[in-house]
């Protein structure tokens, strides 16, 4: 099974100190009040995925956020996934609906 996480905030089970320090070192941030991890630095994002997968003992993918409609969506079903060097990493993108929707695109352009 694959676990889908949202890079803006996700929960992890309690981890030992060394693993927690490693996560922070790799670029995660921890909100004590909400108990949520979020991504602060994307320089080691591939290593973050490995570390989180190791903690959750499962494959992990992150949601993408659409720059046009603002929704979070998964890379599953993307036509370009084989050519993408950042697949399943939490970056901004354009969802497939927005990409083909001409009307939506023209509305988006009026923002500029």
């Amino acid at each position, binding site marked *: 099974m694959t676990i889908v996480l949202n890079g803006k905030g996700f929960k992890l089970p309690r981890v030992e100190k060394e693993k927690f320090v490693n996560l922070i070192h790799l670029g995660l941030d921890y909100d004590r009040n909400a108990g949520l991890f979020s991504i602060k630095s994307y320089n080691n994002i591939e290593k973050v995925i490995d570390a989180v997968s190791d903690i959750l003992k499962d494959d992990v993918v992150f949601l993408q956020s659409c720059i046009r409609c603002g929704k979070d969506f998964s890379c599953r079903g993307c036509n370009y996934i084989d050519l993408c060097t*950042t697949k399943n990493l939490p970056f901004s993108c354009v969802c497939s609906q927005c990409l083909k929707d001409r009307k939506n695109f023209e509305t988006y352009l009026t923002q500029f």
Partner: protein
Amino acid sequence: MQAQTDLLWVEKYRPKKIDDITGNDEAKALFLEWLKNKRHTKKAVLLYGPPGVGKTALVLSASRELGFSVIEMNASDTRSEKAINAIAKPATSYKALDNFTENAKVSGNVLFLDEVDGIAGNEDRGGVNAILKIIEASLVPIIMAANDPDIEKLRPLKKECLLIRFQQVRIPLIIALLQKICLLEHITAEFEALERIAQNSKGDVRSAINDLQSLSEENHRLSLQDTMMLTSRNKDISMDETLRRYFSTQNIAETSTMLAFSSVDYDDFLLSISDNLPKRYTDLTELAKAYDYISHADLFRGRIGTENWHLLKYFYNALAEASAVNPQSYKPFTFVTPPIRIITLFWTKGKRTMLDTICGKIGAQCHVSHKTAKHDFVPYIRAILQKKPKSPLVVWFKFTPEEVDFLTKMSRY
């Protein structure tokens, strides 16, 4: 001033605002946060990632929006210790006088060193150390950009910098940008055609825009069929094939188009053409004319450097003119390739290394530079050893038998 219509689209649609930059939103946010608030904790930032993803565009647009004046040194400048100190030291030692004007938007200077991974060789000697000293003493933010941050010489710089990684721009984002340009340029484009251009670009926005312009500028219409030509770019046409097409051309326009779609190294190609021109033009007047065009191309190649790609069309034009001095006189011939200069450097590498070792030994004993040893000492030592191979000089300079043999038999130095 150049008309807007005459501009390359990469220039015309160069991001003016931060929001105009496609992709890498996370890196943009981190950079802006540093430039606005956190530049006191880390004085320098290193932006790294593949070409054409918006590193330089972000620096320029963010500086413009936040009111910084950019003092830029890029790969076309010599970046030795002396040159960096001459430009960067004054720029980073004083806050801009503009700070004291009534203009509230002025925030001071930023020093921008583009393509720092290109600081190499003798010309840029001491460059990295000079940058480190400037970072330590600087009063203004220092921004650096590189494609490959993992090279050894950048290691000390990385320790002093906030590192921000740029990723290849995703295909859907490139398609979205191409759609926007099509709308602004009144081009009717098939979605599949834009998709193909974006896929072909491999995350390089600059090359995607160039492809779009070259395929659709004339007809204002773009179909999937039109993009079939792009396939050839991915096939990586060999130098031999490019030369064959170049020399057998019938007109300038044909050559220009072929060159625009070729992916051979510009410098190697220029050298190869120079080597092959005497085979192509047997008439001396034609040959002289062709070399004249090649010299213009060489001039533009120098001016292009790694930054001024808007001059590329002039480079192509000059090359194309050299190919079409007399199209009727073309007869197939065997090309000289790779370029003679490169072959010579390859074959003489062993000899050059040996001579360098010898000059090093002379320099150490006589307290002179390698250059002085090579020009002022080697000819005399060679003459002495040719007459008396067992001269005491051999022991004094600690020459090996191979080095003595090399010196006595060398024909030129």
